Each structure stands twice: as C-alpha cells, then as structure tokens.
C-alpha cells in the first residue's frame, strides 16, 4: 500500500518538481521570455529605437504580406531553398557522420569529431577570411585559379557578386558548417545506446551494419534524433551570418538575402524595429510549423 502511495504521489502532484524547475524558469522568464514577448509587442508598433514606439496594429504584418516586394520576390524563395537543402541535407550528413564516427576507437573519433564540429566553433573568424579568399573574384582566388588551370573556365568568375552563384555558394558553406550541436547529440546518443540490444539483434538475425542502424540505432535514440531535427530546422531558417559575411547586407541583387538578413536590414540598418520584429514573428511561425512536423515524425510513444 505504501508503495502505491509513493508512486501515485509522484504521478499527480509533485511539489518538489517546482523546486527543480523554478531556478531555470525564473532566469528564463526574465532574460528570454519577457524580451521575446516585448519583441512580439514591438511588432505591432512603429519603433525607430530612439522615440517611443507608436502603436500601429497589424500594419507591419499587412505591409509584409502585401507590399514588401523584396521579401516576396527574393527573401522568401531564397530562405525556402536554403532551408530545404541545408536543413535535411545537414541532418542526414550529421547522422551519417556521427554513425560512422561511433564505429571508430576513441582517439580517432575525438579528433574527427573535433574537426567536423570546428566550422561551428570558428564560424565568424573562418567564414570571413577563409571563404572570401577561396572565392575571391580575380584569378588569384583559389577556386578561380584551380578552375582556370583545369581549363574549366577561361575568365575568372566574380563569385560573390554574381547573382547566379551567390546562393549556391551560401548553401554550400551552410552545409559545410551544419555539423553543429545536433551532430554532437546524435554522436553521444549512438554511443549511449544499450550494447545488449546489439547482441540480441545479432542473435535475432540482423545481418549487417545497415540493418543494425535501421532497426536498433535509430529507434533507440529517438529523443536525440528529434533534438537534432529541430536544431537543423532552427539553424536552417535562422542562419543569415553566412550571406552577410560573404557578400554584405543587403547581398548583391538580393541574390542570397535570407529572412534573418532581412530582419537585420530593417532592424539595424534602417532602424525600423517594429517591422523587423514583425518579420521575426513570421519567422518564428514558419520554424514552429516545421518543427511541429518533425515532432510528429519522431513522436515518442
């Protein structure tokens, strides 16, 4: 009887649960939730960061949907293209690489994981210098000089200004830097699966690594798979740093302008904070819908 009571107590009203959650919840509310709510509030105003915000109702949202040609013509299609390739692409790549690394011994695994993760660690520094040098527009740029010596092209291509190449370059760099925290979580998740499951599976007739991956590894680490999926979606939609660091903001001809660049353009260049906040809220909505779909896929039963 006492047993049952103990478990029931835990099931229905656990006061100590509040003690566990309270410190985090307090700091979260003050430094994240309230600012986010304030930002959402700003989206209904006209705010130039100096004068008091003026309430304008849904005007920012209406303008965004009806009269922001740049948003509809360039920003939205670019963001969708970027997110559709870098999101799932980065996710699959993270999983495959983590899975491959998990089958190595500790030292090579740590070194490889470090290197694969390093683009996420060094993003700012490396991006500006490294990729600008690679894609430099004259014949001295690495890519141009390689392609020219191979005879693929005869004239140097001005990569980072050419509207045809800019978005593909940004997408490529996005994939290059997509081995982030999702990748680390998957790697830790695979290493953390119960070894006896593999032994049992081998007895039950699992024949190779791939069957093992499909039937054992993935099902036993659904929580990590979901985490990595949500993080890929968030990163795919929220990454604007690559475009602006490679080609400035706004990017030439808006060729690689992503939603985050649009927000920065309005918020910190034109000082239309209210409008920038409205775009952020729309972005939040888009990201939320996609992560909701991914949650359905990895629903824990």
């Amino acid at each position: 009887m006492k047993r049952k009571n103990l478990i029931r107590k835990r099931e229905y009203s656990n006061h100590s649960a509040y003690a566990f959650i309270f410190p985090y919840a307090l700091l979260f509310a003050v430094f994240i939730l309230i600012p986010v709510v304030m930002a959402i509030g700003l989206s209904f105003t006209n705010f130039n960061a100096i004068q008091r915000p003026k309430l304008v109702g849904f005007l920012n949202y209406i303008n965004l949907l009806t009269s922001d040609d740049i948003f509809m013509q360039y920003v939205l299609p670019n963001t969708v293209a970027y997110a559709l390739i870098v999101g799932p692409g980065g996710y699959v790549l993270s999983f495959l690489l983590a899975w491959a690394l998990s089958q190595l011994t500790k030292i090579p695994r740590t070194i490889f994981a470090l290197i694969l993760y390093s683009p996420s660690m060094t993003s700012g520094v490396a991006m500006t210098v490294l990729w600008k040098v690679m894609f430099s527009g004259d014949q001295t740029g690495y890519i141009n000089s390689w392609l020219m010596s191979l005879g693929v092209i005869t004239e140097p291509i001005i990569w980072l200004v050419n509207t045809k190449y800019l978005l593909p370059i940004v997408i490529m760099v996005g994939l290059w830097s997509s081995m982030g925290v999702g990748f680390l979580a998957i790697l830790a998740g695979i290493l953390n699966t119960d070894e006896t499951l593999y032994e049992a599976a081998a007895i039950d007739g699992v024949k190779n690594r791939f069957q093992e991956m499909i039937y054992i590894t993935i099902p036993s680490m659904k929580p990590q798979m979901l985490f990595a999926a949500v993080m890929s979606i968030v990163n795919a939609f929220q990454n604007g740093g690559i475009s602006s660091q490679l080609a400035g903001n706004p990017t030439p001809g808006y060729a690689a302008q992503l939603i985050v660049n649009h927000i920065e353009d309005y918020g910190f260049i034109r000082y239309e904070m209210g409008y920038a906040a409205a775009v952020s809220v729309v972005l939040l909505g888009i990201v939320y819908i996609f992560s909701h779909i991914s949650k359905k896929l990895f629903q824990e039963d």
Partner: protein
Amino acid sequence: MAYKGNRINPKRFEKGQIKIILAVLPLVLFMGLPIVFIFNHAFKPMDELFAFPPKFFVTRPTFDNFTKLFKAARTAGIPMSRYVFNSSVVTVTVVFSSIVLSTAAGFALSKLKFKGKITLMNINQAALMFVPVAVMIPRYLTVNALGLTNTYFAHILPLIPLPVALFLVKQFIDQVPDSLIDAAYIDGASDFKVYAKIVIPLIKPAIATAAILVFQQVWVNMETSNYYVSDEGLKTLTFYMNTLANANNNVAGQGMAAAASLIMFVPNLILFIILQSSIMNTMAHSGIK
C-alpha cells in the same frame, strides 16, 4: 560468416575501421580547413598576411603577431590579467550554473509530473526558435530595468538560461528507463537523490555536449560587454581582444587580430577534446540491462 553485431564504440582498432576512416577522411580534410587556417594565419609575418595572391599556409612562421599583441596590451591602461580574470569568472560561473539549472529543470520536465509541464516545455522550445537579433533591444531594457548594468551579474545571469541546453538535456533524460527511477523511489529515494545519484551519472554525455555549447556561447559573447557594461575594468577578454585588434586598425592590427583569434580559439579546442573523449557508453557502465 555470421554477423557479430555491436560495432559501436569499439575498444580496439580493427581492419574494418579503415574503410570508415577512408570514407570520412575527404570531408574531414575539407571541414578541417578553418582550424588549419587559424593556426597558420596567426604565425604569418606581415608580408605573408597581405600576400597577393593570398596564402593559405605560412611559409616563414614567426611570433611577431603575438609579441605585438602583448606589447599593445602592456601599454594599455588596464592590465590584460584583469580581462583574463573577468572572462574566467564569468565563463566558469555560467557554464556551471547553466548545467546545474538545465539538468534540474530537464529532470522535472522529463520524469516528474506537475501542472503546466507540457506548456513549459513548449514555451522553452518556442523561445529557442525566436531569432536572437530581434530580442537584443528588449533584452537590454530588461537588464537595465533590473539595475544589473556594470556588474558581473550582467555578464552572468542573462546567459545562464539556454533553451537549447535544456532541450538537449531533457531529451537524454527521456532515455533513462522509468523502471530504474521507479525502483529507486520504491527503495525510498527522494527526488533529489534520484536526480543526483541516478539521472546525472546516466546523462554525462548530454552534460558534456551541453557544456561545450554553453562554453562557446559565453566565451565569445560580446553582447554583454558591448551593451550591459560600460566600465572598462569589467569587460571580458573577447571584447578586449577585439578592441586591441580594431583600435590598431592598420597593417599591424591585422596580425594582432590573427594572433588574438588563435588565443581565443585554443580554450574551445582544449575543452572539446577533454569533454568529447570523456563521452563513453555510460549505459554500459551503469548496470541498466
């Protein structure tokens, strides 16, 4: 030959692993470029930094950039040790508190039942989907309203709640079998005991990963030094390194910037190696069978 199974986290090197290494190597080389670049760039003498065509590798390495950086630091009003101290205090406090609070909250969200749990989880996840640039000004206003400006708290408190870390930790706690936790309760363990003695040891991989993440956020953070603190003696090393490199925004500044990025990068590297190599199969060592 029958399939042996269980090739995850092998203890010894086997021939089968060569295939994997060969398959991963091209990508590893490609992605390793920034590390190689940061190391090479920092040791380049002036003429190589500005070489035309640009050079990726250093041909005549020198410590010039570092000597210049430290010389500039010596002539500045506030000694560099002050910034090193500030950054260390801030980073250690934030990483430690963030891990303690996220694991505690993650435990409650994953294993305890209470009102408003689902809502809290959803709010936390929605917050992580909101672009950080949009909350910069509201966040400044909040820090200001609380009177935190020009204190260490301005560096520390805003960075402790990291929704990604909580989400990550909570996902790992979900994996801890309920049967194990129920057994502990039946044996009379308190919630705190279950948290400290069962959950924490089992989610070490998540803690290591979250620690890397939090460290990275704090260590390179310039927002707090830029906006919340105007007292020079309270700013962080990252901020200082940046101003040193920018204040001398001439030819010498470039070399100093390269040296500064290497100095700022090395702690990341060390922490990553220590934490990642400590991630092992904790389930196997814990007796969950």
